């Protein structure tokens, strides 16, 4: 230490000079180093600046879909058939539940003592939870009752992270009355997800599964809005940058009248079958009931296994929409259409007569075809009014199967009517070609004979029959049946009438031919016995024209019923078709029952009661009223 002072003074000049040089070199190197650093920043911020800016935006900005409100469905008078109602559900934020996975299981078990939570609910909750972040809310139980909400709020302190949250859910206020027409919505399933437009359905949980809900899915769904949000590195939303509100789905006004629908359901009672009332002037369906019905509300928020099993196991098949997918043998209800074929193709004039002896033979064959009513010589009018089989046996045989099926195909048999309700069946229009295709067998003339009275291979749906009947009623004009009456873009705007489906080619060219058929059907209702439904039109202000059908449910070759363990009352599929007023029809009605004694005894009185109800409500094509309610 003592030396240090002397040492420091040694040769200071030279030390300082060395230092100066080194310091300058050092400073230059440092400047070079910092220059290189700046060069790197230039590269990142200028050269690749735009690219990084984009990356930065991409990871912070997220566009979320905001689901639109589904369009409402009304009947033609503005009665609400499908509504969106506020409901409450239980949601869980997994992150906020203490104790991790175990804590979650414990919470679910304890919560189960307060509010009923099914295994289905838990399963759904767990799978939904797996797809979300821990801080995102996951629905656990939908549609809480007021009682459940009250019970939960008492115990709420025990369940941090569990919330009662309001949401909109689909509801069908008339319950089972319109389920077969309107259908129902349900949660989007994996299969549907594959076909859906992902951008349009992002944020949407439900989709139309059946009926009108399915058919008009695109109209009802609406256009989703979007919300541009800024998210942090943890995925939490920090703020909303932009919000485009969704456009709600269109409101639909159906052509059906809820009052007539209710009356139709009432008169059908517990009979298995379907009834349809249609306006032949435009093809609008006024009432359409398939019995038994079921409550579509069950399906909206996920049907419970027990409820579903009950519906599936019910021998009465409530899920089957008999009006558009029920398989019926038309029986004698086919006769007016066969008659139209004979007249239009020039094989019969209305005055031509055929002799009925009680049995019909194909020339040269021994086998006889039964005619329960040996009426003697009948013309077309009487043949329809008295339902004389022989007349139609011989006519069908003369037409031959090709001309027969060709002409009856014009009425829409054997093809979908195109009614705007999902789930329609095709039925069977007997033809040689059909038999070859489906059974790979040749056609026999005997099969043509029985086809002439609506037996044999025939399968029709009530809507097909209603369509064909409305063609007859409209004097040959082919107006496809439909249920959409008008559409409304939004509450407050006036509903715009829906364009009618394109009419098909007219089926009856000569008014005289129509007149002959109409007279036959009128006589069936208004003539004295043996007219099939004599007296049915009593007390009705308009003339009714109709035709019964009593189709053999069982083996058509077996003349003895002994092998069948059913009573006479259940032996047949029974049908009735009619329209009124006979001269200028405004309504056509089909009643089709799966079991019954005869069309005249079982189906016809039901049809009359439907006509009675219609009389009360018919205000001759009213325009739909705008729903008088506040925007939801």
């Amino acid at each position, binding site marked *: 230490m003592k030396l240090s002072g002397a040492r*420091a003074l040694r040769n200071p000049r030279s030390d300082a000079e060395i230092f100066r040089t080194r310091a300058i070199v050092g400073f230059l190197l440092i400047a070079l180093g910092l220059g290189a650093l*700046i060069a790197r920043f230039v590269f990142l*911020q200028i050269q690749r600046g735009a690219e990084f800016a984009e990356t930065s935006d991409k990871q912070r900005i997220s566009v979320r879909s905001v689901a639109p409100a589904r369009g409402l469905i009304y009947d033609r008078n503005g009665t609400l058939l499908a509504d969106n109602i506020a409901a409450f559900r239980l949601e869980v934020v997994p992150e906020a539940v203490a104790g991790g996975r175990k804590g979650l299981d414990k919470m679910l078990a304890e919560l189960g003592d307060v509010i009923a939570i099914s295994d289905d609910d838990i399963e759904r909750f767990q799978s939904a939870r797996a797809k979300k972040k821990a801080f995102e809310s996951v629905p656990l139980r939908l549609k809480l009752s007021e009682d459940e909400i009250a019970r939960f709020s008492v115990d709420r302190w025990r369940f941090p992270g569990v919330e009662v949250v309001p949401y909109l859910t689909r509801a069908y206020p008339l319950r089972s009355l319109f389920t077969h027409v309107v259908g129902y919505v349900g949660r989007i399933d994996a299969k549907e997800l594959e076909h859906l437009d992902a951008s349009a359905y992002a944020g949407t949980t439900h989709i139309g599964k059946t009926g009108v809900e399915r058919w008009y899915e695109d109209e009802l769904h609406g256009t989703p809005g979007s919300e541009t949000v800024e998210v942090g590195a943890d995925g939490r939303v920090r703020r909303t940058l932009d919000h485009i509100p969704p456009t709600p789905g269109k409101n639909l006004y159906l052509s059906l009248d809820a009052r007539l629908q209710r009356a139709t359901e009432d008169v059908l009672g517990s009979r298995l079958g379907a009834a349809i009332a249609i306006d032949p002037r435009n093809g609008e369906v006024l009432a359409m009931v398939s019995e038994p019905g079921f409550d579509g509300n069950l399906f909206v928020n996920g049907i419970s296994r027990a409820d579903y099993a009950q519906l599936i196991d019910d021998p009465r098949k409530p899920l089957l929409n008999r009006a558009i997918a029920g398989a019926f043998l038309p029986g004698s209800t086919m006769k007016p259409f066969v008659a139209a074929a004979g007249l239009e193709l020039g094989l019969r004039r209305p005055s031509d007569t055929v002799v009925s002896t009680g049995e019909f033979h194909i020339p040269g064959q021994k086998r006889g075809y039964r005619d329960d009513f040996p009426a003697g010589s009948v013309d077309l009018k009487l043949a329809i009014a008295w339902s004389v089989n022989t007349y139609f046996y011989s006519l069908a045989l003369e037409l031959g199967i090709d001309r027969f099926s060709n002409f009856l195909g014009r009425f829409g048999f054997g093809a979908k009517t195109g009614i705007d309700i999902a789930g329609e069946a095709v039925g069977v229009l007997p033809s040689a070609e059909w038999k070859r295709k489906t059974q790979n067998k040749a056609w026999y003339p005997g099969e043509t004979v029985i086809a002439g009275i609506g037996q044999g291979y025939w399968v029709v749906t009530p809507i097909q029959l209603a369509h064909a009947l409305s063609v007859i009623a409209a004097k040959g004009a082919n107006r496809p049946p439909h249920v959409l009456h008008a559409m409304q873009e939004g509450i407050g705007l006036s509903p715009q009438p829906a364009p009618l489906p394109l009419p098909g080619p007219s089926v009856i060219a000569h008014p005289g031919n129509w007149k002959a058929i109409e007279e036959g059907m009128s006589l069936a209702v208004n003539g004295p016995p043996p007219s099939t439904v004599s007296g049915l039109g009593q007390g009705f202000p308009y003339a009714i024209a109709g035709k019964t059908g009593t189709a053999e449910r069982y083996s058509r070759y077996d003349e003895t019923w002994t092998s069948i363990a059913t009573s006479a009352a259940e032996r047949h599929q029974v049908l009735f078709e009619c329209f009124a007023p006979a001269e200028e029809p405004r309504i056509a009605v089909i009643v089709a029952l799966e079991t019954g004694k005869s069309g005249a005894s079982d189906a016809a009185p039901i049809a009359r009661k439907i006509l009675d109800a219609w009389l009360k409500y018919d205000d001759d094509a009213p325009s739909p009223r705008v729903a008088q309610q506040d925007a939801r």
Partner: protein
Amino acid sequence: MTFEFDHPGTRLRLLARRWLRAPALDWPLALGLLLLGGVGLITLYSAGDLDAKIVLNQSARFVLGTVLLLLISRISPQNLRKWTPWLYLGSVLLLVIVAVLGEGRGANRWLDLKLVRFQPSELAKLTMPMMAAWVLSRRELPPKFFSLAIVAVLIAIPAGLIAKQPDLGTALLVVAGGMFAIFLAGMAWWRIGLVAAAAAAAAPMAWHFMHDYQKKRLFTFLDPAADRLGDGWHIMQSEIAVGSGGLWGKGWHHGTQSQLEFLPEHTTDFIFAVFSEEWGLIGVIAVIVLYLFIVGRGLTIAANARDTYSRLLAGSFSMSFFVYVMVNGGMVAGILPVVGVPMPLISYGGTSVVALLAGFGMLMAIHNHRRTPR
């Protein structure tokens, strides 16, 4: 001293009054540091999402550092030189204590003195250049092999202890402090070349002595995308932050990368990424130029120093200041591996700020006792 007052309190008061009336500072350097501190606090306020608490915390450290700077600026370099071996010994001792019973997150860097917690390695960053200057100034310059060997050993002791903590970044800074002293003392160029060649040859060997996490960091640095969710995340997010700043930046407190927490450690090691994002290339150049100015000013003070010890101390401290900027800036820009070296006077963290300001206090002291007095 010519003062004859007996009362120590009166003497101290007079001293303080004199200091305050005429603080002996190099004004350009003081202004540079003030500017940098201002930039640091403003950036911290934004990076900390307008949390006044951490800004106040940091300000308190600045105040403490400034007081220390003012006090040290009054000490004559002769005294500093006298105390140097003891200070060096003290810091090595503290490093040993830390090695035995230190604490800290993952690495044993901290010493808890109840009142304050600090990292002895920060102290070593000051005592290392002091000690190197002390040894080198005792013998004839340029230094011969013997002095170089002694300095090398004196560098290796604290550097080894710090590297073992493990804190490679700080060890590097300590080594740099000593090396710069040797360089400025005039170590022959051929020797420098030889050492550089030896270092290059030894690099593969160093691999064996590296911790797994250090190896991993090196791998991640070479290919950040391979570890997209782990350490690579830091590097990538930092590059995104810097790059998305562009020429003009996103504006103060509009740096989405840090505000939305994509950027990790955005108040400490990666705060310069926040600054780059919000102030753009313009801001980056301004700050780097400011750093260069401070280094240059420090070297000027060194060149004007009265004796060899002061020169070497001031010079090596100023140059090692550059290493901070280079290592942190390079890390933020993705051209150097992630090591825990703060951006000087900008990163949040107490010991670093206080130690740096104390170091600049020595520079001020050397300036006050320069060759051509006022």
